[in-house]
Every structure is written in structure tokens, then in C-alpha cells.
């Protein structure tokens, strides 16, 4: 009788331990690669970097075959694709409705969003390392093919600026993913912010005197442009401009988006 009763009771399991953040990050990283679209999106960073480097070797004048030319050319495709990786990492939970599983297995949305932010930044830094490597390779090949002198005209500090600039662009994408939570809407808004808005700002600046002085404090792209020029170190004022535009265009909307993510119903 007792044996029968005992059979009905499930064996007592070992104490269940909480899921560590590192494990969530590892799974989120895996989720960026494990679909065909995700894989090719990240692969396209490497592909376009190589294409951009090849383009510099083919079309740039010999005296411009310097490391900074390569790094600048590679930046353009990467700065477009990288934020898309961050956007889709967030929005796919809603657009593909995988959030139903994700937010049930980890019922603390802040931890998932944190893991997504960290894994996106990890991808960004890896992509930057790749960019610098492809740029260096391009520089070596370019010098060998054309016979032009090998020029390494970028300092470590400038590389760090460059990485910071890329991470900030990626975070703008991340912010839009959190704020909008729909893939197409977030991607379109990203392109509006990155390409349309700076054009409007520069038109305004040409048209009116008073705005020209204001632009570095309003236009996030303009404020950050110093990070990408491989020219000189930034002044305190330029850092302040990066800070102000960052708070307005990145931190404030990100906080608003996070607030909504914490409260929104997952369906």
C-alpha cells in the first residue's frame, strides 16, 4: 500500500538554481545566428567589409591608399547593417512571437533585454575587430598591388573612438527595437533617423545662421562625426555634444521604450 502511494509522488528533485545572466547572453547570441536571415545578416557584415576594401584598392588614388581610407570605406556598410542586427534581436520576439516562450522561460523582461543589449554589443565589437583586420589586410594588399608606400595613419585612440561610434549607432538601433517592437517600423525609423534627418538638419544649417551653431547640440550624427574622421582628438565641447545628443536621442527614448516593454502584454 505504501509502495503504491509512493509511486504517485514524484521524486524530490535537487534544488533548482536561478538562470545566470551569462547563460541568457549565450542563448541570445546563438539566436542571432541560428536562422537563415540572422546568419546572412551577420555574414553580410564580413562580405560587405571585404567588398568595400576591394573597392578602395580598385578605385582609390595611390596616395590615398592609407589605413584610414580603408577603415572609413568599410564603415559605411557596417554602420548600416550592425544596428539592424540589434533591432531584429529585440523586435523578433514580438514580430515572430517567440517572446511567448522567451519571456515565460525567463519571467524577468529586464534580464532578457539586458542580455540582448550585451550580446548586441559583443557582436558590434567582434564586427569592429573584423573591420580593422579586413582594413589592415586591404592596406597590405593595396600597397603590394600598386607599389604605393604602406601608410598606417590611425592611432589606437582613434580606433577606440571608432568602436565607440559604432557601438553608439548600434545602441540607437537597439533603442528603436525596444521602443517600436516591430521589425519593419523600427528599421524604417532607423533609416529616417540616420539618412533623412541629418539631411534635413544640414539643409537647415545652410539656410539659417542661428541653427548652424545649434546643430552639433541637436544632430546626433553631426555630433558623433568626429569619432569617425581619424583626424584629431576630440575637444571637451565635442564630448559634451556627443553626451547631450546621446541623452536626447538615445537614453530618453530608450528609457521610455524599456518602461513600455516591462508593462506591455506579450501575445
Amino acid at each position, binding site marked *: 500500500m505504501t509502495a503504491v502511494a509512493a509511486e504517485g509522488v514524484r521524486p524530490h528533485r535537487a534544488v533548482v538554481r536561478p538562470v545566470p545572466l551569462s547563460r541568457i547572453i549565450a542563448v541570445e547570441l546563438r539566436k542571432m545566428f541560428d536562422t*537563415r536571415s540572422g546568419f546572412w545578416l551577420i555574414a553580410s557584415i564580413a562580405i560587405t567589409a571585404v567588398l568595400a576594401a576591394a573597392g578602395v584598392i580598385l578605385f582609390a588614388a595611390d596616395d590615398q591608399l592609407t589605413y584610414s581610407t580603408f577603415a572609413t570605406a568599410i564603415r559605411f556598410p557596417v554602420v548600416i547593417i550592425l544596428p539592424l542586427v540589434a533591432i531584429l534581436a529585440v523586435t*523578433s520576439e514580438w514580430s515572430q512571437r517567440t517572446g511567448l*516562450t522567451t519571456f*515565460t522561460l525567463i519571467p524577468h523582461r529586464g534580464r532578457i533585454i539586458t542580455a540582448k543589449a550585451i550580446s548586441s554589443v559583443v557582436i558590434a565589437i567582434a564586427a569592429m575587430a573584423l573591420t580593422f583586420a579586413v582594413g589592415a589586410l586591404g592596406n597590405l594588399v593595396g600597397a603590394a598591388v600598386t607599389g604605393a608606400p604602406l601608410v598606417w595613419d590611425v592611432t589606437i585612440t582613434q580606433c577606440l573612438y571608432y568602436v565607440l561610434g559604432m557601438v553608439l549607432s548600434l545602441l540607437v538601433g537597439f533603442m528603436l527595437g525596444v521602443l517600436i517592437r516591430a521589425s519593419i517600423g523600427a528599421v524604417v525609423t532607423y533609416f529616417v533617423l540616420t539618412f533623412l534627418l541629418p539631411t534635413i538638419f544640414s539643409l537647415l544649417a545652410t539656410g539659417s545662421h542661428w541653427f548652424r551653431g545649434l546643430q552639433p547640440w541637436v544632430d546626433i550624427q553631426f555630433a558623433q562625426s568626429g569619432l569617425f574622421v581619424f583626424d584629431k582628438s576630440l575637444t571637451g565641447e565635442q564630448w559634451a555634444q556627443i553626451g547631450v545628443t546621446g541623452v536626447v536621442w538615445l537614453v530618453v527614448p530608450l528609457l521610455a521604450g524599456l518602461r513600455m516593454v516591462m508593462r506591455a502584454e506579450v501575445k
Partner: protein
Amino acid sequence: MITVDGLSKRYGGTLAVDDVSFTAAAGRVTGFLGPNGAGKSTTMRIMVGLTRATSGTATIAGRKFADLPNPGREVGVLLDASAQHAGRTGREILTLAQRLMGLPRTRVEEMLTAVSLTPDEATRRVGEYSLGMRQRLGIATALIGDPDVLILDEPANGLDPAGIRWMRDLLRGYADRGGTVLLSSHLLHEIEVIADDIVMIGHGRIVSHGAKTELLHAAGTIVRAVDLARLEQALTDWGLTANATGDGALRTDADAALVGTVALESGVALTELRAAEGAGLEEMFLELTSTTQREGARA
């Protein structure tokens, strides 16, 4: 054990879930029955923390879902089998769950076998899966952490009769080993086949709650007579309520012996007298369904 206590959810002016309280006991399969839009899914989403309740609580073994350290190891959840990234393979979806829960890698293949997904099917992308295959994959994801509690929303949707039988045997075995199963359905037949206890919900409110055997037997009596109008009058005179079933019979809550006595006393010849097994539950359910269908037709 799942305990739901005074749960309400308001969307604007409408109460989608209205003061819902029930328990799903360990060792039993509890069927959550109601027409589409009755509030089943909302209640289940609140249980697992995807939706915030306006008031009330839902606990699992005395704890809130959000307080579980590794929920997948304690509660298996399947809310919508189609809510998966179409570009992932079945095996990859299980692997993600296995990694997140910190389980041994062998669990993935074990679960694929348990839900009869072949190695070939497991390497295909979920976008190519039929609804039945998605349900099997969803069940596998719910079971992979070997939880004590299962919460399944319409798990039999899209399954063929053999699949429903498989699901019934699986859940029966799971409950017999001491597990708690809560599953929802909008089909009375599915619930009748699988569940031990039934919680019936309509318009956000619980309309009936109890063991399946009790609910099916508390159904009253069906009676036919040559002079039906006279019988109805006689029953009413005795203070009993009788309703026409629409097919030439009367249905009353009184038991068969009492109805027979009334007929004898009033001299009405009966042509049929029997217990209305299951009819009470079915009629209540049909009533709920027809009102929602009328609303659907109007909208």
C-alpha cells in the same frame, strides 16, 4: 498545484476575466473549457506573467510564477504552438530551451523521440511544419525541463484523432505520476476525453467547476409523455422547473423517481424517462457557445 484566486483583467471598459478562482490539483488533469474569447488564454497568460492582472493572484505550488528561479524546470508552458521563429529548425528550438534551462544536451533527442518527431522533421524549419507538428514540438518544449506542472493552451488544436489519443495518454501518464496538468479547449469532447476536473468559463466568469463525473451526473432527467403540456403543468404545480428540450421532451433537475411519482399522481402516461447524462454540461456549454456565436454574427 495551481491556485488562481480572484483573478480579474480589464481592457478598457470590458472585463475579459471576471473574478476567476479555481485550483488545478496535483495528480489530475484539469480541463479549462470555454468558447473562443471566453478568457481562457488571458487567464493562462496572467498565470505565467505575460499579462498583468488587474486584480487577484495566480500561484504555482504557492509561489508566483516570476519568483520561480528557473521556471522551465518547474512549469511546462505551451500557449501558442505557432509562436515560433519560422526560420528555426525544430531541433534548434528545443536546443535553445535546453541551454536556457541548463539541461544535459541529450534531453533534446530524448524529447524529439518522446513526441515522435523524426530526425528528418527535426532538421526542417518550423515554417514548413503542420500545426500538428508544431503542437508536438510545443509539447516537447514544455516537457523538456521535466516540470511538475503543465499549462497548455489548446494543445489538441491541429492534432488528428491519433494525435489526440497520443496526447491523452501522455497527459494521463503525466498526471498519474503526480504531475499537475491544466489544459484549455473550446471543444467539450476533447475535455471530456482527457480531463478529470472541469473548469468551465464563459464571458470571463467561471460558470461551472468540479470533477468531471459529478458534473456529468448532475444533469437531471429527460422525460417524454403523450400529453406533454399536462405533464409540464403537473411538474410546475409540484414546484419543479421543467424546460422543453426542443425535440418533444422535457428536461428537469428533479430525479427520475420524483418525475415518475408526479406523472402517476397526475395520471399522465410517460413514453420515456431517463437520466440526462452529460446533457447539463453540454447544454450549458452550447448556451455559452451560441451566445458568443450570435455576437460573432452580429459583428
